[in-house]
């Protein structure tokens, strides 16, 4: 590299003196271009600049011309007056040497990543809030486009297309959940649930109900979402769990009624299907009880079910929120998650949304539309500490991608998806029910996508270790979060899980359970 005279050119005197420090810590790593002492010497002798392809003005001549233009001899002359004395850092950091060649960087990073084993290589039965759905090629194509990928907060006039794409996402989400108001994306479903609960509380406070400071949540809900609700809503409300029927998993309505009777409840939350996979079949009664006590209802549906399953908006939910990762996002080790929030077209709700809302408006040309950040006073970007909560850069690209997904799927695609998952789930339960020592579908009711499997006489950890040896990621171990369920795991199948994979799981489990 140095022979071509490109990189590593500017090493200032202080570095020259510390050259042994700088170069002495070479690590033998795969793909790492190890420098020889000869090349190092040449680099140090060619004084001036560290030329890097990501920084065009690192080219010595350009840099010098810019310094000359400013009438200074070094960049340090531009900041020395401000950054000096004890504030100035001049030491060596324990950072590895730069990998300048792109090929070397690729070998290095992919060398590390290639040690991962993926859900394409193994059969995965993991779900629990992050799902292995098919991602249509068009979704990746669109979110790879530089315009969307590298756009940011350009607005009405520079990013008309982005604004339309966002509006189409919120519009199609509105159709999917059958609600009229949808905001731009949240960090993830947990944030959406947390913000929806706080929003419900603000709606009531604005109506004068300042004494409503309790949130009731199902004890069967996603533990990570619950943990975030506790963290995020804890400062303003008490978070209380409603028990569940041990046989069916359904929310214990007597317990709910009792807690509501104590008064002060702002919102009741439920998932449908629940984290543990079963349908919350008494959701209407939950809503009636909550409303009867003056509380609002916040519900999280599974978006991939909504082609065949009714939206909670149509059985009593006031705010519908959740996760859009299933709509065209890769799992990305959980990074594909993104949240949504929806509410009815009523001022009392609209005023309380905490994030950007991209509103549609007319232009000077009839029949032409534009968009802008609507009612911005609501949020912290408009009113700082007086806004509704805080927000920031969340998951815009995933919103646009979910829009692409819904446009591709249409009503038929969403129906096929929901129907496929229902059937696959039923099939998986049937196959696992044939394994001795296993209680597949512990709660016995109707499920979507996921079901609890309880093992008799075997530890889930051991079962999963044995499955791993067979190239199978077994279900999410529930023992730590739901010790009352004994040795149980949450199994997940989607439309990407083949019958053959389920059969193979069944056979592997038979082998494992046979040896108990």
């Amino acid at each position, binding site marked *: 590299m140095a022979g071509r005279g490109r990189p*590593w050119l500017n090493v200032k005197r202080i570095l020259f003196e510390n050259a042994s420090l700088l170069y002495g810590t070479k690590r033998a790593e795969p793909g790492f271009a190890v420098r020889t002492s000869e090349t190092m010497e040449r680099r140090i002798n060619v004084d001036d600049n560290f030329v*890097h392809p*990501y*920084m065009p003005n690192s080219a010595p001549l350009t840099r010098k011309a*810019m310094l000359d*233009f400013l009438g200074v001899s070094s*960049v340090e002359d531009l900041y020395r007056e401000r950054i000096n004395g004890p504030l100035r*850092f001049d030491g060596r950091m324990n*950072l590895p040497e*730069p990998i300048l060649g792109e090929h070397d960087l*690729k070998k290095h*990073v*992919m060398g590390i990543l290639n040690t991962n084993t993926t*859900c394409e290589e193994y059969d995965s039965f993991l779900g629990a809030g*992050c799902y292995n759905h098919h991602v249509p090629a*068009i979704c990746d194509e*669109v*979110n790879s*486009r530089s315009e969307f*990928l*590298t756009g940011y907060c*350009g*607005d*009405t006039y*520079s990013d008309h297309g982005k604004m*339309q794409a966002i*509006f189409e996402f*919120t519009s*199609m989400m*509105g159709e999917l959940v059958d609600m*009229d108001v949808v905001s731009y994306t949240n*960090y993830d*479903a947990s*944030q959406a649930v947390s913000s929806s609960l706080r929003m419900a509380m603000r709606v009531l406070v604005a109506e004068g109900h300042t004494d409503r400071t309790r949130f009731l949540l199902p004890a069967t809900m996603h533990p990570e979402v619950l943990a975030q609700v506790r963290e*995020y809503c804890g*400062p303003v409300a008490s978070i209380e769990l409603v028990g569940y029927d041990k046989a069916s998993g359904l929310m214990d309505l007597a317990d709910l009624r009792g807690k509501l009777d104590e008064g002060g409840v702002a919102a009741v939350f439920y998932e449908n299907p629940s984290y543990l996979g079963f349908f919350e079949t008494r959701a209407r009664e939950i809503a009636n009880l909550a409303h009867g006590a003056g509380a609002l209802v916040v519900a999280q549906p599974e978006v991939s079910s909504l082609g065949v399953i*009714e*939206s909670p908006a149509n059985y009593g939910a006031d705010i519908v929120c959740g996760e859009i990762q299933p709509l065209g996002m890769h*799992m*990305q080790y*959980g990074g594909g998650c993104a949240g949504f929030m929806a509410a009815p077209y009523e001022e009392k709700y609209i005023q309380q949304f905490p994030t950007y*809302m991209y*509103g549609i408006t007319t*232009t000077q040309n009839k029949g*032409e539309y534009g968009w802008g950040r609507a009612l911005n006073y609501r949020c*912290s*970007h408009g009113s700082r*500490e007086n806004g509704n*909560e805080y927000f*920031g*850069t969340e998951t815009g690209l995933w919103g*646009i991608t979910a829009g*692409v997904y819904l*446009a*591709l799927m*249409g009503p038929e695609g969403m*129906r096929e998806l929901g129907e*496929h998952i229902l059937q696959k789930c039923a099939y998986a339960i049937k196959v696992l029910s044939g394994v001795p020592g296993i209680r597949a579908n512990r709660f016995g009711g*109707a499920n979507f996508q996921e079901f609890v499997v309880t093992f008799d006489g075997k530890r889930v950890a051991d079962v999963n270790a044995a499955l791993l040896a067979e190239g199978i990621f077994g279900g999410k171990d529930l023992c730590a979060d739901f010790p009352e369920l004994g040795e149980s795991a949450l199994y997940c199948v989607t439309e*990407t899980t083949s019958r053959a994979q389920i059969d193979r799981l069944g056979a592997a489990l038979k082998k494992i359970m046979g040896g108990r």
Partner: protein
Amino acid sequence: MGTIRKNRNFHQARWDEPFIMDMGNPGERGIIISEVEEGAQSDVASLIPAGFARKTPPKLPELGQMQVLRHYLRLSQETIGADLNIDIGLGTCTMKYSPKINEQFVRSSKVNALHPYQDESTVQGMLEIIYNTTEYLKEISGLDDFSLQPAGGSQAIYANVAVIRAYHEERGEGEQRNEIITTMLSHPGNPGAAATHGYKVITLMPGKDGHPDLDALKAVLSERTAALLITNPEDTGIFNPQIREFTDAVHAVGGLCCYDQANLNGLFCLTRAKEAGFDMCHYNLHKSFSSPHGCQGPGAGAQGVVKKLAKYLPSPMVRYDGQKYYLEEGGPASLGKLRKFYGVPAVVVRAYAFIRSLGQEGLKQVAELSILNNNYMLEKLLKIKGLTMPYADGVRRLEQARLSWQEMTDETGVTTDDICRRIVDYGFQDYFTSHHPRVIPEPFTPEPVESYSRDDIDEYVAAFESIARECRENPELVKTAPHKAALATQIDEDGINNIKRFATTLRAFRKYVEKEA
């Protein structure tokens, strides 16, 4: 000097695309879902609990795959991404180049197809990258531990506020210390996150030097002070050389100090949170450490703390025992979960690759070239009559600056919002004016990060020279801009400011807004 175009006679694509909800025809299909294999099928109706079958299918569009693709590609052409323009205008956003090789990494199945609950032995590569990135950030900040769970910069601020609360509560001062101090020119995420966590917010205004005044800080410090949340430099680009005195003063009353380093671009390897006396800091990995901003995310935040605060960090943390990487659940003091799973690992992978491609000397060059670019740009921009740089005359800015078109407005009636629309006609992103409220009138906040060449900066400045001429010779041209954008007429602002006309979905717009009109 390379060839540059001073006026490209740019015209954005204008496709006048219909709403996709109105496109296509019944029966057309964009994608087909695999059929359930024989032997695994069942009667769907029997699998849906009574009363829960969807009565009316969702009113989603029905159109062919190519038609969906074409629609979105056209919308993309009506969007100016950082890859396509000289994106100096979005100051504070650090619109640097996001290397395409890094995109290949995160789009490989080795990242895309990982489930967050896989056995740790099968995600060692991912954990190694997260772990090593935290190790590098410890060096870069001088702080003792980092969580990469925050899913964005503001969530990292929020996480720091949660740590502040946990710290004071554990010391029995949770009730007493109910005030958080921040500054008017810090990101609204600071007051927003503090208020979300129940704190009373005290806001310091910029002093005569353009940064908050030490005496003003001392005047609001007390036994009620929980913490100071401060950015340095703020949006003005003026580095506060007294920052250490600020942190000393806060510590003297028992408060904590939190450095908003969302944008580290002008500081890399020149000055650190540690030497400035901070207990906490945060970085926006998608900004300084280069990830594409994705039309507002997904990004990632890095939350850094000193040793005494490490136990409060979110759960889990990625650790290394010398042989393997593993996830360690937080102890009883941990603030718990901020985001499902472990944050946004893809952004961490890109940040890792960015750090590895640069090393310390390269990162220092990032800072130096950001400062050089900015000063070079300012020297040229400020020759434009009507554009000024309020505060601290003669003081060099670091990586960005907040400028003002007030004199231009006074002279010609053309406002910064007009110029912000007009710049789009030249093929540039509209620029960042300021967060609200606009402390500096008619604001404009450029940030020429290290990715931009001198030629890029010259071209960018030339566009403003040209617009300044237009302001004087043909102000109507600027006031009625844009003319060459995809949307070339101005919107009716009432539609987005008046709740009676509010709509974020087409169904609401047609049902409630158009009907009324």
